[in-house]
């Protein structure tokens, strides 16, 4: 839904959407026939309908969350208990889970993505660049449930047998790696999120790097810079705002991602800094519980949805403001938001 709303905003910019329909003038002169007038109002109605739909969605969510908002007020955001038996609901464990897994996704995914982007923009031969870029962007089109399945059946065994024991041995003394490796935990969820943001972050970063003028690279090379130094000094610094925007865009996707996280995070409503403990994100909580929930619990779930909606909206708007000029490169996200 939200994706549609932002899509709509972009169409308006391009002048093909509602903004143009509203202007009462078309590029090929006045509308003479009755048929044309009907056509015009029909498409205008469709365009306006999407706008109404978004507002309807927001209003419905606020209305449905009313009981929860009245019951818990501002304390909902800091409440750390989610107990349907006592009818006490707080959002903190899930805000925590979302922020922690998203932070992991950024921490792991961004260096990989920037590496991919540097290879594609600076080092790959042209015959390889096009197909490789296409494949990277194609990764964004893989449905997130497929990533989830892959994580459960291919990634999880590796996590349990190798990666988690390794981190436990090396960093077991920190609070981040306490507990037993089970593979269905925040660590696995963070890694699958990291993989899922790579297409977005890599392709937008690549576009930003390719927009750096050749003269900048030549300036560095002529001072005796190596390829690595040229990339660092002329390319990354010049493209830094675009790369930063790409990261925020990736963050937006990580925050909203539902299916793959629900399948891997272990679904426990607790706040724990250990990555080896299961957790819950805002989206996975909703996905897990909406079926059985009613009354106040359903209302609280919808309020969680509002919190998620607001966070994701702010992050995405912020990202689009920064990377607006590279937007053509943004692959359609399968599960974002």
């Amino acid at each position, binding site marked *: 839904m939200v994706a549609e709303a932002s899509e709509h905003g972009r169409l308006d910019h391009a002048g093909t959407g509602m903004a143009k329909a509203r202007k009462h003038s078309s590029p090929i002169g006045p509308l003479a026939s009755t048929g044309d007038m009907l056509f015009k109002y029909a498409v205008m109605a469709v365009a306006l309908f999407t706008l109404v739909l978004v507002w309807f969605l927001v209003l419905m969510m606020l209305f449905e969350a009313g009981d929860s908002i009245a019951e818990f007020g501002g304390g909902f955001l800091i409440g750390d208990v989610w107990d349907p038996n006592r009818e006490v609901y707080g959002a903190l464990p899930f805000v925590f889970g979302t922020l922690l897994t998203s932070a992991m996704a950024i921490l792991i995914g961004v260096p990989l993505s920037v590496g991919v982007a540097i290879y594609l923009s600076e080092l790959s031969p*042209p015959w390889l660049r096009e197909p490789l870029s296409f494949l990277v962007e194609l990764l964004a089109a893989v449905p997130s449930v497929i990533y989830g399945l892959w994580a459960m059946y291919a990634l999880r065994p590796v996590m349990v047998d190798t990666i988690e024991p390794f981190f436990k041995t090396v960093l077991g003394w920190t609070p981040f790696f306490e507990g037993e490796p089970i593979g269905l935990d925040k660590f696995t969820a963070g890694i699958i999120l990291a993989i899922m943001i790579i297409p977005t972050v890599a392709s937008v970063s690549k576009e930003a790097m390719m927009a750096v*003028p050749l*003269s*900048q*690279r*030549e*300036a*560095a*090379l*002529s*001072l*005796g*810079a*190596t390829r690595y*130094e040229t990339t660092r*000094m*002329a390319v990354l*610094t*010049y493209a*830094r705002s675009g790369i930063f925007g790409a990261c925020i865009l990736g963050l937006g996707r990580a925050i909203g991602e539902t299916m793959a996280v629900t399948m891997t995070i272990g679904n426990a409503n607790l706040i724990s800094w250990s990555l080896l403990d299961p957790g819950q994100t805002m989206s996975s909580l909703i996905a897990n519980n909406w079926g059985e929930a009613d009354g106040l619990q359903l209302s609280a779930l919808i309020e969680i949805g509002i919190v998620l909606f607001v966070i994701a909206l702010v992050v995405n708007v912020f990202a689009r403001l920064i990377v607006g000029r590279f937007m053509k490169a943004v692959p359609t996200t399968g599960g974002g938001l």
Partner: protein
Amino acid sequence: MADKIVTEGLNAYFGDVRAVKNVDLRIPERAITAVIGPSGCGKSTLIRCMNRMHEVVRGARVEGRVLLDGKDIYSATTDAVEVRTRVGMVFQKPNPFPTMSVYDNVVAGLRLNGERDWNKLDATAERSLKLAALWDEVKGQLDASGVSLSGGQQQRLCIARALAVEPEVLLLDEPCSALDPIATAKIEDLLFDLKDRYTIVIVTHNMQQAARISNFTAFMYLGELIEFDATKKIFENPERELTEKYITGRFG
């Protein structure tokens, strides 16, 4: 006068196109050599072969030898990076690093070489900016962005940046083509002052400029070196008819 750079049977290609054809040229030390010729004659490509910048373009390659102090810069044992620290370059359009301050632009090359001593960096920045005749104009705004300067100042900033790594040779590829006459005059004065210390090769499409500042002139046409001699000789009494036609403006 010794020869600083010597090209022997130099051919430069972009893919299948040969842009420089069998050029044998001797660039004298501590003098200004101008390379003139009509657009597309390969003069920029020629000087880009002298610091191995030609090969940066995809599909570009070089045949033949380019000797810097008698050593072939295209030999298997020569590092292109080292060549470029000895042979600096200034480009057609000023290209300061936009995210760096005036100061950081000037010392960028020094920092690449690992210089961290602030006293040394400060001294080099001041010396290079003075050499580039820019110090008096920017000494109060060293922290300003490099792109906040005027076009002429940006080009002198690029000259200062190239000089800061203390190259032996300075290659300039039509450095004044994007500048107004006043900024051009400033750069010409500055090059004139620098020629006692550096070997300078300047590509220009402006014949008056070549006549004003250079000691030697090379005339190129369709990728070939037509004539090379003292500037006075080229402009007053050229050997080749083609050179005379170009100098007198009958083509080009």
